[in-house]
């Protein structure tokens, strides 16, 4: 048993050391000020430049874990990156790729509700308002 504990502890310490060493390394190299949020916004602007029509048809095209759009309360979000960071696990979001995820968001898949701060988090990934065709 002692062997297994020693190996596990060794791996744990090694991984932490590597991660923190890489982090310090990356901090020293990071002189460009592009934050992730700015990059997100740039991408969103690019998408808008492409003259995309944000209707359900377009959303439905992005229906995989590697390209995941969803709709919450009439707004379209690209949650591809966020799904990995979702506190409730990736699975909860991936269900809603390419679909209207409003009900899933409001009810946490039938098991509760999100706090208001969750909408703020989501807003970082906003692409735009969903286009709904009247009469259809």
């Amino acid at each position, binding site marked *: 048993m002692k062997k297994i504990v020693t190996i596990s502890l060794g791996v744990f310490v090694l991984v932490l050391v590597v991660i923190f060493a890489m982090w310090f390394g*990356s901090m020293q190299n990071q002189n460009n000020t592009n934050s992730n949020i700015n990059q997100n916004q740039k991408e969103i602007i690019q998408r808008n430049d492409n003259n995309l029509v944000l209707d359900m048809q377009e959303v439905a095209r992005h229906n995989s874990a590697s390209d995941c759009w969803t709709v919450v309360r009439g707004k379209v979000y690209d949650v591809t990156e966020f799904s990995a960071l979702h506190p409730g696990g990736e699975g909860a979001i991936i269900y809603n790729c390419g679909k209207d995820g409003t009900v899933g968001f409001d009810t946490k898949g039938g098991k509760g509700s999100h706090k208001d701060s969750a909408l703020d988090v989501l807003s970082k990934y906003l692409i735009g308002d969903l286009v709904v065709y009247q009469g259809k």
Partner: protein
Amino acid sequence: MNNFFKKNIGWLIFGILALTPVIRWFLIDNLNFKFSNISTIATSFGQITGLLGIILFALNLITGSKIKIVDKIFFGLPDALNFHAIIGALGFCLILFHPILLAVRYLNFSISKTAMFFVPQGFDAISWGIYALGIMILLMVLTYYVKLKYNIWLFTHKFMILAFALAFAHIALIDSDISRDLFLRYYVLGISIISIVVYLYNVILDKIFYNNLEYNIIRVDKLAENITQIELEPKAKFISFIPGQFVFIKFKSNNLTQEAHPFSISSDNNQKNLEFTIKSLGDFTSKISNLKVGGKAFVKGAFGKFSCNYFPNTDQIWISGGIGITPFLSMARSLPKNNNQKIDLYYCVKNKSEAILLDKLKEIEKNNKYFRVISWFSDEQGLINAENIAKLSDNINNKNIFICGPVSFMNNLKLQLIKIGVKNNNIHWEKFSFNN
């Protein structure tokens, strides 16, 4: 009930308890999503290690509590404590891999986010988990790599409950499969609460309600340089026990530390007084000879299933190495006179001067024609082995064999006996992992 179930039922029950939530986890969501790419696979294994880790931690607390029900479910407390040590170590390793595997998904994003995942941010769900892990690592390092005195180690080990309480806050608050799935939520939180209650019962209530019975020391005999025999008389209530069992004793003496230590009873179970024959093997037991007649002792028990009574009406072989003779003395003294159970007791010591209880055993032999004592002196005859025993006792493959003595003595004999065809389930031993 055959010997296999008699001896392993505790491991089976607790094994099923540990694996149930993992099986449930595999059933709740579509597995394609959970194992679709490296990041989701790592996250999934991170969740499984966390889930199994916390359940093992909870079962570890339960099996580490010295309560009767654990003694009953397992093959005695020593067996439960073996389980306790194994799942404690396994659970700890799983919990170490839990954050590492969960951190993989952050690598997709940035190294700084990955690093920050390991840094507590205050008092949120993830931070509680980090604090719990920190305390666990510290306590496990003390357990495995620092040689502390038993009473000091025991004191530090009690802080495991703090690590568990923080881990409990972590699983209760975190948004995860445990919070989404009702079965998992009630199961994990339920077992965690039970384990906290059992732990607190053992540590606190036990002291308040005096589960320990009070005894007076009425005899302290130094049988040899390093062996002391003491006799305790109950002040009022007394414990009942099965021969072969042990109790925890706390001595009220200025010479000894106050924590409870386990000792095998060597007296007959038909009398109220308890007799113990104790060899000085460590810090605590070396001071036993300083005890004085008239001193007080608090006794808790009795525990253990290392007893001929659990295998009634079977012919048996008892093998003792050195001070391992004590439970057999109790068993021999308690044998019913009209029983036709054939028993051979091997009393293995270095030489005749060490065979301090031989006269008492010969006395019992005289009065019971089915009971035979075979003394074995290793200085003259060499170390006893399974072949010697097979020559001296007939039909050993169909007998229940009890071994008690130093760990290497028990390990060697057990392996040799299995080699010559004795079934593993017919060999009984009690591996004390407590320190004396």
